[in-house]
């Protein structure tokens, strides 16, 4: 098996879609390595974004996600995108893990840069750009405050913001991942942006410009 070259026992799988790989994996288990390869980094990042767990905990969640997905592969609904399905499992595993260890899965939005200094992720900039404000924010100055504002949002709003602006999922995918109707997803995103905007105004972040 050479995952780097997308081959398993000499057969080339690189061109295949996720859904085709699922079908192949249903026939031979080792093809699953390619799906792990495709999603490991993305899911690692996603779990990190929706939780504040240690690296060890996150690895455990990730491993459980892949194991659970493998066990349930025969039940994969082909009308769904594989990515939505595995994101859903990762999301549910993170929530379950938080329940198990009685922790609150919140995201920090702050990641350490190369110098070990915390800095907000691009969500802040993406949301700021998406919000219809009369004034043009100086993002460089207010990034920290916006990240702080995001921290105060309810989990349900943060979840949709992360999926929409960081994972860049469309409404249908978010609906499939969070298992909520599309109408609810769109209301959550609209409210999340409104709440975010209110927090920014309440905290006088816009006056710091």
């Amino acid at each position, binding site marked *: *098996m050479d*995952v780097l070259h997308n081959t398993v026992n000499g057969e080339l799988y690189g061109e295949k879609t996720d859904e085709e790989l699922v079908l192949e994996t*249903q026939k031979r*288990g*080792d093809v*699953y*390595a390619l799906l*792990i*390869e495709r999603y*490991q980094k993305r899911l690692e990042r996603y779990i990190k974004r929706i939780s504040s767990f240690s690296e060890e905990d996150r*690895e455990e969640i*990730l*491993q459980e996600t*892949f*194991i659970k997905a*493998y*066990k*349930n*592969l*025969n*039940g994969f*609904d082909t*009308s769904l995108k594989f990515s939505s399905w595995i994101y859903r499992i990762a999301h549910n595993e993170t929530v379950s893990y938080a329940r198990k260890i009685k922790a609150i899965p919140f995201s920090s939005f702050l990641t350490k840069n190369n110098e070990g200094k915390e800095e907000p992720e691009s969500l802040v900039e993406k949301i700021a750009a998406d919000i219809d404000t009369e004034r043009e924010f100086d993002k460089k100055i207010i990034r920290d405050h916006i990240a702080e504002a995001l921290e105060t949002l309810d989990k349900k709003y943060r979840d949709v913001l992360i999926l929409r602006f960081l994972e860049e999922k469309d409404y249908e995918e978010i*609906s499939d991942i969070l*298992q*909520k*109707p*599309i*109408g*609810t997803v769109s209301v959550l995103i609209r409210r999340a942006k409104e709440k975010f905007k209110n927090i920014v105004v309440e905290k006088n972040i816009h006056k710091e410009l």
Partner: protein
Amino acid sequence: MNDIEKNIINKIKSGEIEKKARWLFVAERIGRWALLGSTVFIGGATCGVIFFSITDHDWGMYDAVGKTFFEFLLISLPYFWIVLLAVFSFAIYVEFKKTKNGYRYMPHLIIGGTILLSVVLGIFGHFLGLGEIIHDLASENIPYYQSFVYNKRDVWSSPENGLISGKITGIRDGELELTDWNGGVWEIYTSGTVWNGLATNTLDKKIKIFGVKNDDGTFSAGEINDWKDKIRSTKK
């Protein structure tokens, strides 16, 4: 290949983790829909009993029991079945949400659809007589059921107000024996009595009587109606 990947693939190869068989998912899906279907059916049957309770009631009798129509309406609504319908509608909503695509539908659509389906099935069940059968079964088998509901039996179980009902269990010249819904046996004088509608002096016939309770515990019938005939206005 990194650690997580290696670890999982090794577990797959060694058989430590295995895919759940496809038939398990199919069975789960069938089981879920069967449960959902049964709950929808029960919800429909419950709705059928509600229709029966409403259409079977003698709504014109409010005056005879000393109530205003509004008071009579309030005590007569089939709350027991309405609560059951609410419980089943909620159960259907929860079960539907668990189906493959159930989460895609808005709650008000699912609940509205559930109630609509129950009403349609209820109307169907009512016309097939299912509502009445369930109502009678509940009356006979559910302990304290009668104390939860106020229906036609309660209205016509008031000898002091000149209202009595039950089944004819004996026929003699000029009188009949009536066993009421609580098992009490009454001697009913029928000379000069008016027999309305479908009411006949036949054994096992269910009837309801306007009359007067005598001091010796007997009852003089003024008017006898078939149990199912509608009384549109109060007559004593």
